[in-house]
């Protein structure tokens, strides 16, 4: 190919790439970014909780009851015996039923097939969810911040709701930040 023709082709290709390049952001269209937990939302105040206390809430809240009632937005805030804060997704990683927090047993128990999750780290210790391999045997956790006033804010989700955690082995305490 003569060099001049080669140059023309190169220019054409570069122009084509330039024109098409903005469309790489089309991929964003398919995700609901807000669902991945970029929103900072107040859940409760430290005064509302005593050891063993818990609050069910939805995150991220939109004000649309249909969306806020979606199982994939249901979370529970727990204060453990020794005063630690924990937030877990309420969707069982086995078959998506909604486990309840049982205060007397200090466990989350799934009503469908009896999977039992520990309150301290959300890992299943009994039932079908416990047979799944890590990281799919543990409830996704909420990232929270506690500010000077004692307000508790949810700022994100660690894990895949209805599926399990991420591969990194993060300690539950690392998700609670004091600001």
């Amino acid at each position, binding site marked *: 190919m003569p060099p001049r023709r080669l140059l023309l082709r190169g220019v054409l290709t570069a122009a084509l790439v330039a024109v098409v390049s903005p469309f790489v952001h089309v991929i964003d269209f*398919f*995700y*609901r970014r*807000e*669902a*991945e937990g970029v929103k900072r939302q107040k859940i409760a105040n430290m005064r509302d909780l005593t050891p063993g206390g818990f609050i069910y809430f939805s995150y991220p809240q939109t004000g649309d009851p*249909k*969306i806020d009632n*979606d*199982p*994939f*937005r249901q979370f529970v805030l727990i204060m453990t015996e020794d005063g630690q804060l924990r937030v877990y997704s309420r969707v069982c990683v086995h*078959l*998506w*039923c*909604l486990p309840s927090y049982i205060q007397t047993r200090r466990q989350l128990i799934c*009503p*469908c*097939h*009896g999977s039992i999750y520990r309150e301290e780290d959300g890992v299943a210790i009994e*039932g*079908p969810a416990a*047979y*799944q*391999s890590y990281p*799919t045997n543990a409830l996704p956790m909420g990232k929270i911040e506690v500010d000077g006033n004692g307000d508790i804010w949810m700022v994100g989700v660690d894990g*895949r*709701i*209805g*599926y*399990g955690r991420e591969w990194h082995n993060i300690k539950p305490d690392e998700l609670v930040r004091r600001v």
Partner: protein
Amino acid sequence: MSSNNIKNVKELVNSLWKWTVDRLERTTIVVFKFTVPKQYVSPFGYLGTLTAIVFAILGVSGAFLMFYYRPDVELAFLSVQEIQEKVPFGYIMRNIHYHASNLMVLLAVLHLYYQYFSGRYKIKNEVLWVTGVILGVLTVLEAYTGYNLIMNQRALLAVNIGMGLTYSAPLLGPTIAPIFLGGGLFDLIIRFYALHVFILPLIMLLLAVVHFPRALVIDFPIISAVVGVIFISAGLFPAELGIRFDLTRGVVEVPEWYLTAIYAFLRAGTERFTAGALLPLLFVILFLIVPFVDRSKKLSWRDRPFFTALGVASIALVAITTVWGFYVDFSKETAFDQLYIEPTLFYGLIGGVTLSSFYVTYFYLSRQKRGQRPPPTRPIVLSSRASAVLMTTLLILVAGAVAGTFYTYSINLPNHSMFYLGVAFILFGLLLHIYRHTISVEERQKGAK
């Protein structure tokens, strides 16, 4: 009207028809060569056309269901219930759609195996074959997204397994899964709806354009019988509504029959991604690459013992796992134990059955001597009088079946009604066949004179 007038009308219609056909020459429709057989030909040869016709039935019935269906996480089940219980004819419309979907999967599988055993993927048909295999996978995905739209317990189980599998895919899984899931179930149902009613059918139609051979056989008696089969199966096994999804209640469910094979692997404690995605993918890839591996010039299954044995073994594997996927041991106490399949037994048995069916077929075929082909059977020829008697009898039977259809529908027995209608369609197909047989016999006799 005088005979002259009738003649004029006939001429007008004829010239109009000719005018239209002339202008169709400019369109793509002339690319296809439609053949309407004058006598019986084995439907195995055109199972693909039958699949496409059932696809068209699905398109029409599905489009009508869209009038009432609501793709909403809370309303979906209620709207299907409304279609089933309140909308006039809705119950039957839904049954047509549901049973046509089952039949389409079944016909596609039969089509695949017939073409496989008769070596049709050779003789420059590689592109047809590969698009066909992809269409088969899309057919199952289309059926899967369809039965999930009901949002009953079975749908939730299937969605759950599907999402779990997508998430567990290495590297891309966590990126792809949220595309289907969106922000939760409220997004998921609309996305599945879009996939089911538009995206997947559109891809299937585009692929079908490539997949269709230029010669198409349109055999009306068999088409009528296929419609009859849809109604008969609808009458015998009416589509169920199931139990509305409830996230506080554990119900033992099994998926639809075309997915129970995968379900059996999942239940046997196989690692999720391997069982649900990798093994089925290997199975599909096996079929995809067959034309590039089997390079012999021979077409008949008798002359290709290895590939025939492979096909028979794959049928054995699919059959045993499909049946096993349905099996629930209700003597056990918890749902989990009821569904658990002992892996050593499972893998031992399916391995044994698959290997032994391969072995038996291979050695039977490679040792047999090619005998003479059996002499062709003499075709039955009906006399004009016999045809007339038979056709009249069939007409009476069709009328009886249609009367039964109306009567049972009027006394609120829609299942019986569908069954009678199916019988009517099959009898009509038979009537049509005898009609064309008689015409062709008469024409042959005229030609002989």
